[in-house]
């Protein structure tokens, strides 16, 4: 499997970063968060979220075309918004770009991006293969209407489930105020969407959950452990849980986004001894036995006992996270060269520069991963400054 960094016009500012605009590995294309900026990375369209969304989507399209594909190949989007009240405006604009077969799209609130004034960042995964693209759009009420958002999207062996919330058939979020019950409801929807796409919970590589208050993650852990209680630890999926400053559907407390791989064989979990959750059904990173895609859990600055390493040291916490990613990918038989995508969540969104600086020593400067940094309100432990979520594709056969 060849791995290629994709370049496109107007994105010169990536040259100074350990990040590529996009990375292709086999049929999959991983695109960094696109936004409204000039070639030097200076923000454009200040105060106009619709224009920003259009420019970000134009960039996404240009990158896809440079890689030999098009917007119709996009299967997964996570968009980050500094004001969730404006998610609908972004989706309105996006509807013109995705007239049919929209991707599994997860809008997420963020405290900030590269620079102030950047209101929306659009990060995507595309599948450039020949297999038909299947979109799951539940006709039952409850899934938001009139937006270019599939609940799940499948192409080839990969299924992406958009951030599921505990919506009822009438689109209400219930029960109000109850994190655990909403997490259960969201997981039930995840299961249904996987089934509609021809996959099962056994195919899930990784789960990303977003929570309105970081403290809301705590009751959700029980739900997570219940959901995976019958899964042997060597076959666990990876989990990344992030606190965010709002949800795009009012009343929602959590949303769950999932990647599944229908490649043959069991799910293989690899969890270094250095990771404190090694004795729970959460892996450091997981893939299918016959697959090449690895979903790597959001790595944090935590020692094997769960203590925060280097409290308050932004650079060294990031370095610690990258070393854990390295361990996980090496345990799967790969190397840092196989890391194709990074989404880094930061308690202080201004930290991204320091974190990218720390990332330099880990990645090949000619072909660094696609990378999207974003601000979060809280991570699992209040002492964690970053949580770094990564995807890798093994070179394999």
């Amino acid at each position, binding site marked *: 499997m060849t791995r290629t960094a994709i370049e496109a016009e107007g994105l010169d500012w990536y040259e100074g970063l350990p990040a590529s605009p996009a990375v292709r590995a086999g049929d999959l294309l991983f695109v960094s968060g696109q936004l409204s900026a000039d070639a030097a990375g200076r923000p454009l369209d200040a105060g106009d979220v619709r224009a920003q969304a259009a420019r970000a989507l134009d960039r996404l399209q240009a990158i896809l075309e440079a890689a030999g594909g098009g917007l119709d190949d996009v299967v997964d989007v996570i968009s980050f918004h500094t004001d*969730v009240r404006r998610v609908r405006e972004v989706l309105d604009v996006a509807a013109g770009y995705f007239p049919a077969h929209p991707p599994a799209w997860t809008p997420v609130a963020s405290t900030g991006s590269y620079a102030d*004034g950047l209101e929306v960042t659009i990060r995507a995964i595309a599948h450039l293969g020949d297999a038909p693209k299947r979109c799951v759009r539940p006709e039952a009420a409850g899934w938001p209407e009139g937006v270019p958002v599939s609940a799940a999207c499948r192409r080839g062996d990969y299924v992406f489930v958009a951030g599921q919330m505990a919506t009822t058939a009438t689109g209400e979020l219930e029960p109000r105020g109850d994190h655990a019950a909403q997490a259960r409801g969201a997981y039930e929807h995840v299961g249904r969407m996987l089934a509609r796409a021809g996959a099962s919970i056994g195919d899930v590589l990784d789960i990303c959950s977003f929570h309105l208050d*970081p403290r809301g993650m705590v009751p959700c852990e029980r739900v997570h452990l219940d959901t995976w209680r019958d899964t042997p630890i060597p076959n666990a999926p990876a989990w990344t849980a992030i606190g965010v400053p*709002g949800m795009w559907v009012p009343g929602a407390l959590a949303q769950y986004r999932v990647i599944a791989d229908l490649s043959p064989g069991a799910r293989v979990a690899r969890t270094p001894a250095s990771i404190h959750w090694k004795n729970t059904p959460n892996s450091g990173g997981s893939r299918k036995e016959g697959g090449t895609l690895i979903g790597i859990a959001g790595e944090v600055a935590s020692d094997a006992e769960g203590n925060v390493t280097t*409290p308050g040291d932004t650079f060294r916490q990031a370095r610690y996270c990258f070393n854990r990613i390295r361990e996980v990918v090496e345990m799967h038989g790969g190397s840092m060269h196989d890391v194709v995508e990074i989404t880094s969540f930061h308690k*202080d969104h201004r930290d991204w520069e320091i974190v990218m600086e720390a990332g330099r020593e880990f990645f090949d400067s000619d072909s660094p991963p696609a990378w999207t940094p974003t601000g979060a309100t809280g991570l699992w432990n*209040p002492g964690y400054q970053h949580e770094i979520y990564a995807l890798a594709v093994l070179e394999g056969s």
Partner: protein
Amino acid sequence: MTLPSVARKVGELVFVGGTGPSADAPAAAPPGDVRGQAHAAFDALAELLETAGGDLGDVIDLVSLHADARTIEMVFEVGRERFGGDFPAWTPVAVTALPVPGALVTLSAVAHLGDAPKRCVVPDTIMWWHDLPASAGCRKGDLLFVAGMYGSDADGNVNTPGDHAGQARNALNRVKEICELSGASLGDVVAVTSFHQDPRWIPSVAAVYEEEFFGAGGGGRAWSAVGVPGLLRLGMLGQYRAVVDAGSDATLAAATGAPPAGEDGDVVHRGDPEAQARAAFEALEQSLAGAGMSLADVVQLASFHIDAEAFEAAARVGRELFGGGDAPAWTAAGMTGTWEEGQQHALHALAAR
């Protein structure tokens, strides 16, 4: 829903709130322009003060709320130009949202129109504040405001990185020092507002606050603690602002209100922003009653909300409650959380007669 820019005058004091972009305009104007919006906010503040018989030079306390911590310096530049010198105690805070989508900054201020001299201090322990358009403490008459203090050394480096309680201790020692330099003492502090980079740290700060500074229960002082996404400099984990009344007769009363715990120990009306807003205002009313005041005496209100839906609910309830009389100068913003998970609102009020 938005909140009108309002000034309330009581005696020689003028309280102003929410001078950021308002919904009267079709959009936050000028869009995406932090400096332009800051100038507009200072224009609105100056105009309200002028109507009350004062000017920007009378401002002794300023709280600026920012959509992004990276814009604080730009608003500082505007403030430096607008104030010229004798800066107020200025507390800048990044928040998760402001009431009007697209709003980048809003201001809340207290001015003293009296003849007494305005006394501005910056202690030597935080020399770096001389580079800011802000005083660490600003006193006029009996009233002293202490700007939000951080755990920092004289050069502005963060003290005890990653240690929230350590930074709190350092910051509260600065509050104490500024009180003393201004001829007051910690005993004169009537209210503390603190901002935290993670709301989960608030309990560890409470131990420092009570055991080392204000005594059990905070000695009856009003203390609001809210989580925010960013402070002035990287690595700063908390910020502590104080309202100090050094007079023998209390001019001001301060009060807080948040949805309390119910009989089962969990927050009341979990998940119901409107019922929680009513509970928060009831708690505020009870807190005011302790000082012999009522909601009608509230002259300035700062409210923090977990999301937009919670803000809308609190604005509706507040308008209803204040409907009959003069509305307070009200500034609202989004927070990442307050004392307990599930509390959707945190109210902080100053009352005066």
